[in-house]
């Protein structure tokens, strides 16, 4: 059974992505019999390239992926380099991991309200400092070059990269490296950058690639914060797929293929940047400079992460305020009155989506965790090195959702697979599994093998050792991985909506549907519910091991 796990896991991920891509590729070249497309043609591409502003759409998608990933990576790396395990550093870390749980859309809504000309920040300084009695007519959100979109993406990518780095760091024994560097006269931050970072980067390269792929093709955040004239490529694709003029679907398919190309191009470009950086820093690593810029780096390292975390939290606070707001005119900092009306009206409508969200999240994450554990345990028992094929695990993270989900529906329909709930769970599994694997694999492989040797030499069988020693020892990372999986599942919009035929309503699909009504008070309510669920998951994940371990000092860390 266990031996089947890797095959199963890869099949589960590769088949849907592959068949989805195929069913997009065919119409992209004119083949879609239901619409009378029986032959192959380049017409969809001609139509696509005739779209006004396509070049800009592609440029913004490409740039927002690279810029936001680079910024987020810089913030995380500088923080890790500058952090010294002080109280402040630990608090910042603790602040960041729950931010990972908050869905992109919720952050985007809150962030938009924070920075809009009539938003919280403008209100805080108006009219006292600015003299603004009316909001200034300034184009901040939806700016044509996607700057606010990039900023929003950074807010979400920082917690993810930080968590991935923190998971990878212990195996590098950074304290020892740093001690060595400092004994050789290096200042701490420079020493970290020169001795730890070069080994850390290869370990978080894959998460960085996932971030780039995500950012080049993101839909929900781009809808809220991204440019509009023209929108990003992914947003255009969505609207073309949904266009009642059905012939647009050929063009949408071609655009989906183009999106895949843009994402791959961005990844390739990043790879080139990596090579370039390696060459350019080769001399710097060994040139003996030990002190230069220490203070500046330290200040930037701490303040950048603190700033991005506080911004994300302020965005949430803004949502909270709006969910309770009565009438609230600019430039008042607080609403004229607070009311529970919005919550009360939403209350009854929350029940079914909440149940569905929990059900789908728990089942898909449980399945994903079981599969990942089975794969890792198999790897351990067969004494095999992590297979190269496991790269395929990350396929759903690297191939843009928008590029294969529409095709996947057609594929599922053709096979006559129509239980919406089951399909949705399977769809979530596609995205949950890689994240669970990403969060768990390293710790799992790193667990001291002597623990299991001791257990087995005490007469305990392999399976029993797995259940009685490995799992309890890994309880903390296991729960964190579970919470990450849950958060990923809860945030899914497109897979839920498309695979569930809209029949499976989750907190996220409801929030998005309501968002089209643009009622910010209701959006506040739903975005908070959406953010609250995974947050509960994270608090449990962090709290349960601590609770279990109140009498076990070595487990509590």
């Amino acid at each position: 059974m266990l031996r089947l796990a890797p095959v199963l896991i890869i099949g589960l991920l590769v088949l849907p992505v592959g068949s989805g891509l195929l069913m997009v590729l065919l119409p992209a070249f004119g083949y879609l019999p239901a619409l009378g497309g029986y032959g192959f043609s380049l017409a969809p591409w001609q139509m696509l390239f005739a779209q006004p502003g396509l070049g800009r759409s592609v440029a913004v998608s490409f740039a927002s992926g690279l810029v936001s990933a680079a910024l987020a990576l810089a913030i995380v790396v500088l923080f890790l380099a500058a952090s010294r395990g002080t109280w402040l550093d630990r608090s910042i870390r603790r602040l960041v991991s729950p931010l990972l749980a908050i869905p992109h859309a919720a952050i985007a809504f809150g962030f938009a309200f924070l920075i809009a000309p009539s938003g919280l920040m403008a209100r805080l300084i108006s009219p006292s400092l600015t003299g603004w009695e009316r909001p200034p007519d300034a184009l901040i959100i939806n700016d044509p070059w996607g700057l606010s979109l990039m900023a929003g993406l950074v807010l979400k990518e920082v917690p993810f990269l930080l968590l991935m780095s923190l998971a990878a760091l212990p195996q590098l024994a950074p304290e020892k490296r740093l001690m060595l560097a400092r004994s050789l006269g290096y200042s701490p931050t420079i020493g970290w950058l020169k001795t730890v970072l070069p080994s850390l980067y290869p370990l978080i390269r894959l998460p960085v690639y996932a971030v780039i792929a995500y950012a080049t093709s993101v839909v929900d955040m781009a809808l809220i914060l991204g440019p509009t004239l023209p929108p990003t490529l992914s947003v255009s694709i969505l609207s073309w797929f949904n266009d009642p003029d059905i012939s647009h679907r050929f063009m949408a398919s071609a655009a989906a293929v183009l999106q895949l190309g843009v994402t791959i191009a961005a990844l390739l470009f990043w790879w080139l940047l990596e090579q370039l950086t390696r060459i350019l820093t080769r001399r710097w690593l060994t040139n003996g400079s030990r002190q230069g810029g220490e203070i500046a780096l330290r200040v930037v390292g701490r303040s950048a992460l603190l700033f991005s975390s506080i911004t994300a939290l302020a965005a949430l606070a803004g949502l909270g305020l709006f969910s309770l707001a009565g009438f609230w005119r600019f430039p008042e900092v607080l609403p004229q009155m607070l009311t529970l009306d919005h919550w009360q009206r939403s209350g009854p409508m929350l029940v079914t989506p909440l149940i569905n969200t929990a059900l789908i999240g728990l089942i898909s994450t449980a399945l994903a965790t079981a599969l990942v554990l089975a794969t890792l345990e198999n790897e351990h028992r067969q004494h095999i090195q992590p297979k190269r094929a496991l790269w395929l695990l990350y396929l759903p993270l690297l191939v843009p959702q928008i590029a294969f989900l529409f095709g996947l529906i057609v594929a599922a329909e053709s096979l006559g697979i129509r239980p919406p709930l089951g399909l949705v769970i399977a769809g979530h599994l596609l995205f949950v599994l890689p994240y669970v694997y990403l969060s768990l694999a390293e710790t799992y492989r790193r667990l001291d093998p002597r623990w299991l040797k001791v257990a087995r030499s005490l007469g305990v069988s392999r399976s029993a050792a797995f259940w009685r020693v490995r799992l309890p020892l890994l309880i903390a990372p296991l729960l964190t991985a579970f919470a990450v999986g849950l958060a990923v599942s809860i945030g899914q919009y497109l897979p839920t909506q498309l695979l569930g035929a809209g029949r499976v309503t989750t907190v996220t699909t409801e929030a998005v549907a309501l968002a089209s009504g643009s009622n910010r008070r209701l959006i506040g309510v739903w975005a908070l519910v959406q953010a609250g669920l995974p947050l509960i998951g994270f608090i449990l994940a962090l709290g349960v091991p601590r609770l279990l371990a109140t009498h076990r000092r070595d487990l509590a860390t």
Partner: protein
Amino acid sequence: MTTSLCAPLSLGQTLRLEHISIALAGRELLAVDAAIAAGEVLTVMGPSGSGKSTLLAYIAGFLDREFTASGGVWLGERDLLGLPAEKRGIGLLFQDPLLFPHLSVGGNLRFGLPRSSKEKHQQVSQALEQVGLAGLESRDPATLSGGQQSRVALMRLLLSKPKAVLLDEPFSKLDTALRQEMRALVFSQLREAGLPALLVTHDHADAKAAGGPVIELG
């Protein structure tokens, strides 16, 4: 101490290592041919990299696939090589005590007891008493001193009723005073239990204290 819990229940069996040869990438690392009688400690000495720990892994059933090995491992009349690690009846003691942090001191000891054992509670408390740790069942292992942890690890090993014991530099992390005390405790307990034991170390004092034959590797 009237009822030693590890009193020879039956006469111990001999652990025989027949023409063992272990190679890595076609290069022979070590070759051993020895028999260890019940109550005897065989010491294998050698610098690091000489393959001492690999030998233990082979005997206990944990050898990594990259190694190739030949030769027989017999306990009495039983061929151990065909058995999975947990069925071999070979106990291990490492340089770290490796007490499971998710279990209490008592839990660690119970973990070693065979499922069918009777009066587990009593056995555990006797074992603790035997090493001067009476009444510490419910303590968190992390709160014990290094020496105390080593003693609990030894008792956990013995409670599991092994047929032979492998010691992987078990004293190297202890300070000098503690090291002598632990040596005395471990070897006396092993002798009393009538178990064949294989000790790998690079410390001559260990070999001397063990009192048995010595093989030098490397």
